[in-house]
C-alpha cells in the first residue's frame, strides 16, 4: 500500500480523481460520464505533447521547440490535406518533419553538448520562422470535412478515435519505458548520465532517440490539432511547450530527470487542460485559468520537493544510525 502511494503517477491520478469528486460535490452535473470523458477527449493534444516531452524530460533534458514543431507539422500536414493528398501522405509528412527537428535537437544537445534549453530555444525560433515562410503568414484553411469531422467520431461510447489512439500510444510507450531493457535506458540516463555510460548504456544515442520521439509525438499532436481546430494560423502551438512542461510537472515528472513516467505525464495533461472546464462548472469565468494553473503548479512542486527533502534527510539519518549500531556491535 505504501509503495503504491509513493508512486508519483498514482498520486497524480488520485489528485485528478479527487478534483473530479470535489467539483462534482459542488456541481452535480459534472459527475455525468460524458462530461468527465470529455475532459479526457479535450486533453488529447496535450496528452501527446506531454507524453513526447516526457521522454526528453526523463533523460534530464528539456525541449522548448515542441510548440513550433506542432505548428510546422500541422501546417505541412494541413496543406497536403487541403490539396487533396489524403491522410496517407499528410501524416507521414508531418511525422517526418517532427522527427527531423527532433534529430537536430538531439544532435545539438547530445553530440555538441549544448545546454538543452538554449539549443532548443534557438531551434524554436528557426522553426517558428519556417512556419511563417511556409504558410506565407496566411492561415491554412479549407481542410476536407471528412478530416475535421474525425475529431468528433467516437470509438467506444464517448471516447473519440483520437483519444483512443493517443491512449494506446501512451500505454505502449509507458510499457516500453517500464518493462523493456532499452526503455529503461531513458530513466537510467536521466538519473545519472555518467553512471549509465559506465555500465555501457549509450547515453548520447538515448538522448537523441528521446528528442526524435518527442518531435514525432509533437507532430502527431499537430495533426490532431489540425483536425480539432479546422484551420492553422502561423502562431499555432505558440506557448504550448510551456503548458506541456507544466503538465509533466503536474504528472509527477522531475525536471532534473530520472523520475516519472509517460502515464504520469498524460494524467498531468488531463489535469492541465481540464482546469478551464472545471472553472466553468464551479461558476467562475475562465479568466482564472492561468492563475489556477500557476497556483496548482507551484503548490504541487513545493510540496513535492519538501516531501522529497524530508525523505532524503530521513534516509541519511537511518544510514547513519545503522552505521553507528554496526560499530557498537563490533565492539561488543
Amino acid at each position, binding site marked *: 500500500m505504501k509503495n503504491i502511494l509513493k508512486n508519483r503517477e498514482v498520486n497524480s491520478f488520485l489528485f485528478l480523481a479527487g478534483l473530479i469528486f470535489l467539483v462534482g460535490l459542488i456541481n452535480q452535473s459534472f459527475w455525468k460520464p460524458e462530461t468527465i470523458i470529455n475532459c479526457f477527449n479535450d486533453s488529447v493534444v496535450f496528452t501527446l505533447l506531454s507524453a513526447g516531452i516526457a521522454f526528453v524530460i526523463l533523460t534530464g533534458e528539456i525541449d522548448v521547440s515542441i510548440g513550433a514543431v506542432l505548428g510546422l507539422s500541422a501546417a505541412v500536414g494541413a496543406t497536403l490535406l487541403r490539396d487533396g493528398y489524403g491522410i496517407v501522405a499528410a501524416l507521414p509528412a508531418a511525422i517526418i518533419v517532427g522527427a527531423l527537428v527532433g534529430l537536430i535537437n538531439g544532435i545539438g544537445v547530445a553530440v555538441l553538448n549544448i545546454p538543452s*534549453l538554449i539549443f532548443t530555444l534557438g531551434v524554436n525560433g528557426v522553426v517558428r520562422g519556417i512556419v511563417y515562410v511556409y504558410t506565407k503568414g496566411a492561415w491554412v484553411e479549407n481542410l476536407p470535412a471528412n478530416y475535421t469531422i474525425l475529431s468528433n467520431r467516437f470509438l467506444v461510447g464517448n471516447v473519440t478515435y483520437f483519444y483512443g489512439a493517443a491512449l494506446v500510444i501512451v500505454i505502449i510507450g509507458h510499457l516500453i519505458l517500464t518493462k523493456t531493457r532499452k526503455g529503461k535506458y531513458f530513466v537510467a540516463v536521466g538519473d545519472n548520465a555518467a553512471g549509465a555510460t559506465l555500465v555501457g548504456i549509450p547515453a548520447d544515442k538515448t538522448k537523441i532517440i528521446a528528442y526524435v520521439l518527442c518531435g514525432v509525438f509533437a507532430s502527431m499532436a499537430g495533426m490532431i490539432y489540425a483536425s480539432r481546430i479546422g484551420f492553422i494560423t502561423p502562431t499555432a502551438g505558440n506557448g504550448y511547450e510551456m503548458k506541456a512542461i507544466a503538465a509533466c510537472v503536474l504528472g509527477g515528472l522531475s525536471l532534473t530527470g530520472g523520475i516519472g513516467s509517460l502515464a504520469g505525464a498524460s494524467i498531468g495533461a488531463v489535469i492541465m487542460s481540464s482546469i478551464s472546464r472545471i472553472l466553468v462548472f464551479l461558476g467562475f469565468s475562465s479568466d482564472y*485559468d492561468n492563475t489556477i494553473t*500557476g497556483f496548482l*503548479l507551484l503548490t504541487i512542486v513545493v510540496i513535492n520537493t519538501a516531501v522529497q527533502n524530508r525523505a532524503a534527510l530521513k534516509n541519511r539519518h537511518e544510514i547513519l544510525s545503522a552505521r553507528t549500531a554496526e560499530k557498537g556491535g563490533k565492539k561488543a
Partner: protein
Amino acid sequence: MRTSFSLKTKQIWKKWEFILFLVIVLEIVIFATKNSKFLMPRVLFGSMNDIISICIISLFVTFVMITGGIDIQAGSIVGLSSIILGVAWQDGGVNIWAASFLAMAAAGVCGGISGFFIAYCGVQPMVVTLGGSFLYTGIGLLVSKLSATESYKGINGFPESFLKLSKFKLFGVIPSQVIIFLILAVLAYILLHKTRYGRQVFLVGVNQNAAEYSGIHTKLIIMSTYVLSAVSASVAGIILTSYLGTAKSDIGATLTLPIITAVVLGGTLSTGGKGSVLGTALAAIAIGTLRFGLPLCFKVSQQYLDIPVGILLLVIIIGRAVFGRPELRTYLMKMKWNGKGN
C-alpha cells in the same frame, strides 16, 4: 592540463565581448552600405524603442543566470506591472508616479515569492518561474478585470508628464529609453562587477556550498537576484506603457525567449558562475540591430525575424561548443582529414 584548459577558456572568454562587438560593427556596416538611411541617428535610435524592454530585463536576468538559475517569468511581470500601473492610476485614482512605484513594488513581491521557493524550498528555478509565469499572467488578467475599461482595449489617456518619460529626447536625438538603458546598464555593471554583492553572486554560481561555508547568505543572494530581475521587468513594463500610451496585461507575453537569447548570447553560462553585464548589453544590441536592420535594408518581413535571430543564436552556441572544447575540435578535424584521405 587543468590550468591550461581554464586558461584557454579564459582567453576565449576575454575575446567574447570583442566578438559581439565585431558582430555589431559588421551588422552596421552591412546595413549601412545597403541602405544609408540606416545610419541616420533618428532612425537608429528610434529602433531602440522596440527592443528596449528586452535590453533592460536581460541585464538583470544575467544576475539570475550567474547564480545558476533561470527566469522565464519576466515577460509576465512586464504585463502585470503595466496593468497594475494602469488600474491603480485610472480606477484607483492614484498619482501616476505613485502608481509606477506600486507596480515596481508588486513586481518585487512577485520576484520575491518565486525567489523564496527557489532559494529556501529548493525547487528547480525552471519549474518555479514556469509556474510563476502562469500565475502572474493570470493575476494580470484578473487585475485588468477590476478596471472599468474592457481588458482587450487597454487603459489609455495617461497624463502628458508620464508619456514624456519615453518621448523626451536628449539633444533632440537620443531618446530617453536609450538613456534609461545606459544608466541601468552602468548600474548593473557596477553592482555585478564592482561591489561585494556582485562577487557573492558569482561565488554562489560557481559553488553554492563553498559560498555558504565562507559565510555568505547564499539563499538570500539567490532570492535577491529574482527580485532584481522582477523589478527590472516592471521598469520595462512602465517604459513600454509610457511608449505605447496603453496599459495592457499581455504586453510582455512574447518577451521571454528573446530575453534568454540575449543573456545566453552575451556569454553567460546557463550552468552559472560566468557572465557579464557588458556581454549581455552588447548581445541585446546585436539582436536589436539585426531585428531592425533586416526589415529596413533587406525588406525582410517582420514575421520572419525569428529565423535570423534563431540562426544567430544557434551559430554562436555551436561555434562556442566546437571551439570551447579542444577534443571536439580535433575530432572534427580528424573527420575532415579522413574525408580528404578517402
